[in-house]
């Protein structure tokens, strides 16, 4: 009886996997198709002739290597900076007592309710006053603070037992030692989850880099991807080839964080 139940479960799981993997599969196949194959009807699964020209075409049309490098620089800086700042803020909010703590925490929370399109122009005005347009600072600094990251980590830090912290204090630990040697090793899943979210969000960020950069040398990958297809749609095979190359770092980061990520989701469920 139990076995049969398992069978059903596996059937649904497999169906789920198929649904999730389908777009990836389609992207990979499309990257090797000709334009006619992409538009053929009924749709063709496999390209008539596997062609690698699409990949060459990507490098011809945009400075793909440069965009890639810029994307890595910006994403790594934002992820590292945002996670570091969020850890410090979350520690203060979760473990320390100081005036207006509640107010500051809810203030941070309200930033989560504000969609980016509303804050975009004011942020742009500040960046332009600072003369940061077309610089890495302009791309990175506005994203170092994230209400969501701080909120997420604060809640995790709160679950950390007080006794452990007190014991560390008695043994002579300062705040930084408590944070980095005692708390952090125990909340690694939460930190890697937030790193992954930040990395993903930043890697595909399009509108802000488009608005804040005016030269090719500061541009990032998503802008390059958009450029490959004309306004009315068109050369999707080239865009798919570029996308295929663009998701590699995301996969690497996911594989690295996956174990920790699952752990953190499981733990959130327990609370």
């Amino acid at each position, binding site marked *: 009886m139990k076995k049969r139940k398992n069978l059903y479960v596996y059937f649904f799981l497999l169906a789920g996997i198929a649904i999730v993997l389908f777009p990836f599969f389609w992207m990979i196949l499309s990257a090797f198709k000709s*334009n*006619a194959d992409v*538009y053929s*009807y*009924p749709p063709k699964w496999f390209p008539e002739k596997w062609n690698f020209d699409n990949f060459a075409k990507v490098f011809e*049309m945009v400075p793909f290597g440069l965009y890639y490098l810029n994307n890595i620089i910006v994403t790594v800086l934002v992820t590292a900076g945002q996670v570091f700042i969020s850890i410090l803020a979350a520690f203060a909010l979760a473990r320390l007592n100081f005036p207006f703590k509640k107010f500051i925490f809810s203030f941070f929370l309200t930033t989560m309710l504000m969609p980016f399109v509303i804050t*975009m*122009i004011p942020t*742009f*005005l500040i960046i*332009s*006053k600072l003369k940061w*347009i077309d610089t890495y600072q302009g791309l990175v600094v506005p994203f170092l603070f994230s209400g969501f990251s701080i909120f997420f980590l604060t809640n995790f830090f709160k679950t950390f037992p007080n006794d452990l912290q007190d014991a560390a204090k008695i043994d002579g630990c300062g705040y930084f030692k408590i944070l980095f040697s005692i708390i952090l090793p125990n909340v690694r899943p939460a930190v890697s989850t937030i790193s992954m979210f930040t990395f993903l969000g930043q890697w595909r960020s*399009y*509108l802000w880099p*488009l*608005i804040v950069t*005016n*030269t*090719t040398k500061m541009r990032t990958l998503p*802008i390059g991807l*958009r*450029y*490959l*297809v*004309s*306004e*009315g749609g*068109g*050369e999707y095979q080239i865009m798919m080839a570029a996308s295929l190359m663009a998701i590699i770092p995301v996969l690497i980061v996911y594989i690295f964080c996956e174990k920790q990520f699952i752990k953190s989701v499981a733990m959130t469920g327990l609370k």
Partner: protein
Amino acid sequence: MKRIIVLLIVFSLLTISLSSFSKTTVNFWYALSGNSGELFKKLVDEFNMENSDVFVDAVYSGKYADTAQKITAALASDTLPDGGIIPAGPIFTGARDNYLILDYIEKDPDFNMEDFYNAMWDYSKYDGKICAIPYNISTPVLYYNKDLLKSSGLDPENPPKTWAELLEYSKAMGKDINGDGIFDVWGMNMADVVWIFKAFLYQNGCEIIDAHNCNPLFDGEDGIEAAKYWKRLIDEKAMPVGLHDLAEKMFLAGNLGFYLGTSSRIGKWVSNTQFDLGVAYLPKGKRYGVPIGGAVAVMFPKNKEVQDATYRFIKFIVSTEKVAEFSIYTGYIPIRKSALEMDEMVELFKNNPLYETPFRQLEYAFSYWHFDQMGNMDSLFWEAVENIEREVMSPEAAMKDISKRLKEEM
């Protein structure tokens, strides 16, 4: 001491000679990507090669909607480029009292305004005054599936020329093949619903809007009549309710007789469809008429040197030869009449007669001047069409409703 003086003199001479060689840089944004972007980049390189004193730094500014955001941000922070190819250009120039480009055109004896189609100029006006130069422009045409016409007993060489014929032919082609009571093959459909709806309004003698005082004209008799024709197309099963998103796919799959859509598909579709493809003028109501869509070239005020250089570059890309080259490669419509006489163009028409239709149809092109609520009007049209098709409102009520709401917004 002497040596220092000599050094200083040499140094100052050097800087003077260097500065006289220095180039004027033009920051130019363009909202062209893919194929069109590639050709545009090529034109920029050509210009930079030919002009040693100017360097055009052309930067892609994103899709149409994103470009509008980028320009808005730049306007707010005073970081505008020197010029650009942007959608809704007049909203960012004329509406802010920038008619710079018109000064240049008027002072330039070589610039032949007559050679551009009138509708192109209307498309580049705000409050009746030119504040841009049309650039990448497309208009809708009637694509038709010759095989389907033939199998429905219609003459594949004689596509519909009037509204009545369009309705009649479309009805003849609609079929329910598998007998489930739902049509599998449809007569006509379109993807850009609002664009085509505006074409119908104009074809029926309605000028859509009086941009002079922003008075909607589509709730008049002509406008309501056009909306009623739309309803008839639905009622008599010439066209499906909704399903407009699928129009292009249906057409390519051979399940649609007439596709009313942008001329820029020609390059992609010629010799790529599994059926014999035909291209014709949009059928006429009381008159022929096709709306214009696309982006325009604009200039923003800077110092005179930069402005001069920007104008020179814009003049270069809208020259007859470059316009012809751009059109042939991208499928956009040539904005100048003289481009049609170019040898390359004649050659193209000889080898690909399908191109000739949309390029010649331009004499019937129309446009209203840009005004601030243009985008709102389009979304109201979309609502009206939905209400008419789904029988939420009668054509008359729907048109009166959106006209009232547009007036309220203004």
